[in-house]
């Protein structure tokens, strides 16, 4: 069955957005990412204008991450305190990022530098996560006792920062500045790249903030939820590019997918989740490299996508 999308001004087979929503929602519930990296280009491929695809996706993520956050909160896997500080940083970072884009655009050739940085960052993070989680899975098999936490120089430096506070849910003690700074960093990148940044936020929470994987997923979703509320409103208000009908079709799939992902995620160990996520991050990196190097079939297109 086809439905007409009043803002995208095109018609779509309803099974496409519902199916896409289901898959992306599943990833969201499992790993705490928004899934814009997958959803936006696929929507464009199915004929949705790029600005509408990005804006509508953020509206859909509001629903998927509400569903996911709720599912993770029920089993006590959302660190609200950490989430709030990350949000604070993310909000400031988003504003900064918008200014950064203006400066970068003025210098010309910024797209190239930004895309290369993003690809390198994703590639490095994905590779590191992959090998780290594989080696920790092996270690656990060999020695059953928990290895004593060795404090690295980096961790020591972090513990000397002012405003140290305890994050109960995550079981970690950090300076309040830490989530604000890293939230800000991801916010800047997100604004520049036009993506939510879940792929960078999750590894930061795991490796730098040293939070347990299951709490990371829930907290990341909580943070994404508020980010996407802000983005949806701004897009609807300034660009008029949110398609309500498309968003409803997408969320029919994604809210259910997020629940299934959350349930499924509980059955997996933290390391297993990390290894799969690392695989997906690497696959996304390869996909971006392909997109950049293969000759496109059309040399002209609408602006506004990522």
């Amino acid at each position, binding site marked *: *069955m*086809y*439905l*007409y999308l*009043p*803002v995208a*001004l*095109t*018609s779509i087979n309803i099974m496409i957005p519902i199916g896409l929503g289901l898959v992306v929602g599943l990833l969201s519930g499992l790993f705490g990412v928004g899934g814009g990296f997958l959803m936006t280009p696929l929507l464009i491929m199915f*004929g949705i204008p790029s600005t509408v695809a990005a804006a509508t996706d953020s*509206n*859909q993520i*509001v*629903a*998927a*991450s*509400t*569903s*996911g956050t*709720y*599912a993770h909160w*029920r*089993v006590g896997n959302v660190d609200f305190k950490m989430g709030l500080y990350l949000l604070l940083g993310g909000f400031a970072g988003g504003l900064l990022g918008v200014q950064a884009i203006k400066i970068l655009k003025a210098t010309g*050739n910024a*797209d*190239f530098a930004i*895309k290369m940085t993003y690809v390198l960052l994703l590639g490095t993070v994905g590779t590191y996560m992959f090998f780290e989680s594989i080696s920790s899975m092996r270690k656990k098999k060999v020695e059953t006792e928990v290895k004593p936490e060795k404090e690295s120089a980096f961790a020591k430096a972090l513990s000397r920062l002012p405003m140290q506070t305890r994050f109960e849910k995550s079981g970690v003690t950090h300076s309040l500045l830490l989530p604000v700074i890293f939230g800000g960093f991801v916010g800047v990148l997100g604004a520049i790249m036009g993506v939510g940044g879940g792929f960078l936020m999750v590894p930061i929470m795991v490796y730098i903030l040293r939070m347990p994987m299951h709490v990371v997923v829930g907290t990341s979703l909580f943070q994404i939820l508020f980010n996407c*509320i802000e983005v*949806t*409103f701004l*897009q*609807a*208000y*300034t660009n*008029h590019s*949110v*398609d*309500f*009908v498309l*968003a*409803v079709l997408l*969320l*029919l799939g994604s*809210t*259910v997918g*997020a*629940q299934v992902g959350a*349930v499924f995620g509980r059955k997996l160990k933290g390391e297993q989740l990390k290894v799969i996520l690392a695989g997906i991050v690497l696959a996304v990196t390869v996909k971006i490299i392909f*997109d*950049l*190097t*293969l*000759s*496109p079939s*059309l*040399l*002209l*297109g*609408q*602006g506004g996508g990522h």
Partner: protein
Amino acid sequence: MDKAKRTAILLLVIALVVLGVAVLADRASAELTAIANHDHITIDFFYHGSTVSVKGIADPDADLIIKIASPEAHETLKQKGKVGGFLWMNVATLKLENVPNLYSIHSTKKIDEILDQKEMDKYVLGYPALGRHVEMSPVKNDEEKAKWFDEFIKYKENSKLYATSAGKIEIKDKVDGKTPYYILTDWPYQAPPGDYLVTVYAVKNGKVIEQAESKVLVEQVGIVNTLSNMAKKNGALYGFISIISALGAGFGVGLIFRKGGGAH
């Protein structure tokens, strides 16, 4: 009535009949008509494109060209190019002026076989004529303009907004010295609401000898219209409703799963 009078009346009648036939014959060779059957297309929730047929009568010796187009406007598109020798990225912005968003052209024979270039350009018939009509920037020379115009056509044909065909117009048997013609074209759902003009040109000896017009109006109706107006005119409320609905749906599905799933 005397014989002379009767003869005079007969002559008069004959003269009138001859004159009438002559007038009718003349009209048959000089009148072109065009009717678009589906002149008001309404877009509702279940709209998935439509069809538009154009029919009329024409001079049997003339070739026909049917043009369906939206009013000329400007378009801004991103140009992809290679950076550093191997990476494809958006490298520039191409601006086009005097281009219709929808341009669909159908002819009885290939346009360049039946029409002089001057006439093609005058009425903007066919891609080459449109290419000469369009203003494009930034382009350094004609070669570059031709290259990007080709890319533009590819982009438009890909979204079904541009189309051409030759030989698809059905020409039927002569009726009273005129030939009825008929063509059925697909109306793409990608065509946005608006006014579209259908123009039929009769062509003889490389020149356009006659034209006839008809209109197609595409309009959103019902909920589609309400939503699209609200998105444009009341962005804040629209955004608010979108967010509240998403929150509600996410929370609602969460509750359903809690009851149904029995995780606790």
